């Protein structure tokens, strides 16, 4: 299963494509998709140039859990800098 992620054009925030075809800042809201759904979501993201930048797919173990190979980077993306927890997504 995969999830689609990108950066918000205005803020640079990490965002995820949800099951309701919208962008969320919460990795737990990321839709888990098969290859066909991924291709569709990626094509859709490419048309949203005024909303998001640099969309790409990440492998997911389960809801909110990136696969081990990508976990280090993707968990930092999802949560914020480990050295400044006050600036991450933890703050809402």
């Amino acid at each position, binding site marked *: 299963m995969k999830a689609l992620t990108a950066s918000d054009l205005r*803020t*640079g925030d990490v965002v995820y494509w949800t099951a309701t075809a919208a962008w969320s800042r919460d990795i737990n809201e990321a839709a888990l998709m098969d290859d066909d759904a991924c291709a569709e979501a990626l094509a859709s993201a490419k048309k949203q140039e005024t909303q998001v*930048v640099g969309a790409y797919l990440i492998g997911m173990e389960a809801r909110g859990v990136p696969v081990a190979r990508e*976990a*280090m980077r993707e968990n930092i993306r999802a949560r914020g*800098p480990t*050295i400044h927890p006050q600036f991450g997504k933890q703050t809402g």
Partner: protein
Amino acid sequence: MYRYDEFDETLVRERVAEFTQQVERRLNGEITEDQFKPIRLKNGLYLQIHAYMLRVAIPYGTLDSDKLHKLAHIARTYDRDYGHFTTRQNIQYNWPHLGDVPKILSELADVEMHAIQTSGDCIRNVTADHFAGAAADEVDDPRVWSEVIRQWSTFHPEFMMLPRKFKIAVTGAEHDRAAVQVHDIGVHIKKGGDGKPAFTIYVGGGMGRTPFIGHAIKTDLPGEDLLSYLEACLRVYNRYGRRDDKFKARIKILVKQMGPEQYKREVEEEWAFIKDSVLKLPDEEVARIRAYFAAPAFETLPAQSAAYEQAKADNKAFARWARTNVHPHRTPGYASMTISLKPIGGVPGDATADQMDFVADLAKLYSFDELRVTHEQNLVFAHVKKDDLFAVWNELGKHDLATPNYGLVSDIIACPGLDYCDLANARAIPVAQAISEKFADLDAQENIGELKIKISGCINACGHHHVGHVGILGVDRHGEEYYQILLGGRADENARLGKIAGKGMPAEAIPDAIERLVTKYLDVRTSDGERFIDAFERVGSKPFEEALYGA
């Protein structure tokens, strides 16, 4: 301090106006990201892991209080209350919003600052010795020549689309504090036979994936020929540098493939055409620029300060800071001093908006309204009266800026790493923090003496790991962070690349590994005065490798 002339002022204002429109057009969808990305990069704006990152140029690291107050204001108003000083003597903001960047650039222009040429395949901000104009061992002021290079390289039409980025560093003292031999071009000013400055030009140094020490292809170059010679160096690179492979596009690869002798022949041939052109620098022009950097109005003082000596005798903590963070000045009664941005367990190079405002006020009071950013990610007051050092230290301590660790084991260079950087494979800052905490004991640090640890989170080597006495390189091994240790590098006039000591280890093993290296060093050194790097060079790598990995 450098000064904008009417050309600089106009260029920067025009660029801000242009970028303001470009951002508007990007936000309303008139231009695509593919079209916009090279434009934003030309204005120092990256998109990193969590947010945009704006890199602001600080010409050869020099600031006055107005500029630093402005940097603080930007951190407070548009960012998250802090900025990060880098190994390029620049400042980076980690959280600006795209729509705010034109306003930030406009505010910077108000204090003669900008983000132009802080990214892209052009000549970047020139860096220089942070003790310029103060150091007792200085032959000539590197800021003068750095400013000459700044003016020449800003919007140089021929060099805006080089094969790859291009970094120039200048030092004006025999002891190189600007790491010139690991730059694309390093300029080392020496004293010529006629008493005038004579330039040694190193070409093809660099770190990253394929590190090299630069080759001295020219010595005794007169100042009047500096720009024509640099132009010839750049032309040959621009003509032959590879554009088909990003990883082979830096000048170091060209010089390696061509051979330094052949590269030099090409440069000399090109130089013959332009040596006597408009690029020849008249003495009057150098004198005009030199006046920007005239020494401040020093008082006539005795070399010794009774107040300073008494304060050291009365206060052990101050005496310790004076031993580590105060540096000799060529003017009697004055000293240079380092403001450490490496508090124990802190983030190397970070400063809060309040700290920046405070340091700016302090510079105005005590250092002729002038300060520098160092490539080792600290700040420097170049000219402080010894009589005032105790007062300055007292004030710094109130803002967590008086850590007495200049050049010591906790004065670590670290790149932003995977906590921020889109290119990184591993984190660098937490490793620096863990080492710093391991060696928190100030007595122990001082006993160990000079030990330069430099950490990068990927092979691009922004953390200069190749030239750390101990270098640490983060790598991604199947999704886990591992760190390789390099030994024996140095970035000074005897520059050398460190060598990988053995297999990588996880982050949590690094502080103990550094401790084993330090223990070995303390064991083998012949006296307190024999630094880590001296002992390493005397006994070789093997005992240290055994300390790391066992015999």
